[in-house]
């Protein structure tokens, strides 16, 4: 048992850092560092740089065109990217539909879709939740009816993240409504330019546009776009959700967030002294840092099991729960540190990156929107209550 990196791992870490320093555009780094809003092009420039290096799909095995990183390499890669203020990789292609396609798709589908995911030339989005189907995902009602070599899709999807930037959407659709809810679902790939698709923004509590409702009105989708077998899409859906849970803990981002919080607490005043010298506030930060450390070592234990050929143990289900709670606590404490200067709402500066002068320090106007927005983490990817239900059933056998 050894925490230290091997010489090979150290060299890899040096290579990753050098690559990120040389290839992450300076303006994108600056936006991430200062918590500013990123646009589609910002993500694309960084992801395409990673794509050229072969590292965008860093979780993929070699046989599907990934780099085949060891678990230790994955950990190093994720941490260094976060430390160097790289934007998070958009997961819809790389961590969601990509692995579904290489696991369940046909050879034609692999050849058609995987290269564009590896190189980030196509932007994917997710069509899972519906207005009537949130936690009870299997009750979804968007219909796909077969018409010769096409499906005709009707219905709507919601909480569709960044769909207004997307080229393609992967959807769970109902192809059989007579059997049990889970047994009549299929997994379809749909070109967002197909006639009949309407994307309607949902404005969130922080004033931002990041999610949408997507409407399908007699949308014609070739049967060739079905992944896996008809009515067996639930298998793909569950596989995808399990993959999603692995990366969702966001440990490197939370580590970075704790350091940023300390910086804010050093800059803010409390009774004429830096806030960080206020014992009770300092202890709240300390408590959070300990929670992040516990999460990090839980993730390391999972990675270590995987390195020795084991499957992720039951620990992995808990990662999403604790990781999301920690992200929320971080925004809560940041807002607490900023105090009343969290109140000014500056949408121009926040969303369009205008030259509007901030009120108070630059970080202040971000604190409350971040806090409001981050309430989503315990809701998305299967709410934490749903996660506890999964652990209770699958791990504890209750």
């Amino acid at each position: 048992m050894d925490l230290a990196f091997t010489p090979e791992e150290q060299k890899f870490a040096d290579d990753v850092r050098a690559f990120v320093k040389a290839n992450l555009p300076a303006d994108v780094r600056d936006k991430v560092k200062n918590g500013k809003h990123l646009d589609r092009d910002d993500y694309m420039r960084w992801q395409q740089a990673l794509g050229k290096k072969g590292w965008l799909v860093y979780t993929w095995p070699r046989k599907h065109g990934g780099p085949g990183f060891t678990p230790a390499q994955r950990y190093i890669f994720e941490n260094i990217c976060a430390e160097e203020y790289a934007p998070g990789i958009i997961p819809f292609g790389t961590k969601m539909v990509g692995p579904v396609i290489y696991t369940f798709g046909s050879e034609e589908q692999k050849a058609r879709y995987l290269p564009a995911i590896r190189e980030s030339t196509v932007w994917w989005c997710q069509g899972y939740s519906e207005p009537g189907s949130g936690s009870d995902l299997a009750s979804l009602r968007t219909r796909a009816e077969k018409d010769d070599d096409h499906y005709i899709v009707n219905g709507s999807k919601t909480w569709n993240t960044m769909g207004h930037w997307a080229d393609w959407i992967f959807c769970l659709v109902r192809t059989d409504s007579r059997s049990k809810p889970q047994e009549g679902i299929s997994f379809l790939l749909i070109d967002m330019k197909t006639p009949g698709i309407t994307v309607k923004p949902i404005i969130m509590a922080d004033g931002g546009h990041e999610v949408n409702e997507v409407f399908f009105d007699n949308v014609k989708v070739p049967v060739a776009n079905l992944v896996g077998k008809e009515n067996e899409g639930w298998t793909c859906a569950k596989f995808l959700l399990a993959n999603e849970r692995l990366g969702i803990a966001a440990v490197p981002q939370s580590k970075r967030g704790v350091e940023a919080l300390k910086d804010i607490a050093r800059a803010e005043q409390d009774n004429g002294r830096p806030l960080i010298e206020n014992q009770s506030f300092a202890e709240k930060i300390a408590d959070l840092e300990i929670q992040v450390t516990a999460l990090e070592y839980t993730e390391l234990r999972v990675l270590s099991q995987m390195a020795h050929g084991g499957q992720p143990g039951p620990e992995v289900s808990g990662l999403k729960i604790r990781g999301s709670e920690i992200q929320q606590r971080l925004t809560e404490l940041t807002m607490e540190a900023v105090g009343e200067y969290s109140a000014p709402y500056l949408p121009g500066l926040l969303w369009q990156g205008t030259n509007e002068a901030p009120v108070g320090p630059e970080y202040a106007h971000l604190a409350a929107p971040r806090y409001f927005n981050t309430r989503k983490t315990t809701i998305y990817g299967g709410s934490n209550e749903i996660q506890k239900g999964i652990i209770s059933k699958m791990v504890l056998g209750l």
Partner: protein
Amino acid sequence: MDLSLSDEQKQLQEQAERFVRDKYAFDARRKIAATDRGWLPENWAQFAELGWLGMSFSEDDGGYGGGPIETMIVMEQFGKGLVLEPFLPTVVLGGGMIARSGSKAQKEALLAPMIEGKKQFALAWLERQSRYNLADVSLKATKEGAGWSLSGHKGVVYNAASADHIIVLARTAGSAREPKGLTLFIVDGKAKGLSRRDYPTQDSLRASELTFDKVSVGADAVLGKVDEGFGVVEDGVDRAIVALCAEATGCMDAINAATLEYIKTRKQFGVAIGKFQVLQHRMVDCFTNAQEARSMTLMASLKIDDKDSVVRAKAASGAKVQIGKSGRFCGQSAVQMHGGMGVTDELSVSHYFKRLTMIDLMFGNQQHHLTRYSNLAMAA
């Protein structure tokens, strides 16, 4: 980076599991707790035979070259069985401090026989007013010819009654609560002028109040350097904390397993109570808490040999915070989910709960270590 156990470590784990299974069934433990000593010499002899008493010491010191990971492995199993033999005071605290700070003569006279199972130790640091401040020491050692004379009181000294030698933290210079001016003395357990009041603890261990009335020791009784004992005891206690965290992890695994089994079998309203979502989610929280405790114990065991004393102290305090928090949650939840049975002496649950509760209080509770961690982490 590799966090998996070696083959030897896996064997050690199996060995320790087997010991607990064979010797520490719940009723067997009850009998051991009721003996005069509160632990069994035959078990201690088995520890020596299995090499557990020497496993974490260097080969130069007569040990087998292991370290904190080996201690973690064994302590975790001890936690599962609520083992009563005084491994922590004798091996981790006493043996560890002598190995790191003792003279060659002290190691020969004390460490070598300890590894053979022939000597036991206790650490006397706490006094009535100390709470968790290791430097709040008023027991005085004054020069007496070439040696020293010790007078004062020490409290809640675990294993003092069985210890052949008691390591005593005494003030040789400086004012109250000053870290500088503290000295460690190795005192014979039967020394003239040393009296004891022995008692059992809430969790069935044994401890004592000690009164030192002009107890004479030679100059060779000093462990480490005169006036510089604080660093030795602080480091020793941090290492003991990490071992204690491993024990707590074992306790949590056991109490969670017992509770899970109980809610699967106990029926109310015509169904197993584990069918109720409110209990399911609480059980998941217990499970997650135990995972976090395990992760922090591993982290601390990997870092407690770090060269940087701040890294070591943060590791021990961070883990102790987690163990305090998780231990209380798992303990209280287990009792609650067992209903009335959880507060009886009859089931093991209350015994694990009591041990987890005492572990939090030992060497500084959750709040104390959160403050200590905070002071270290915010300074950087």
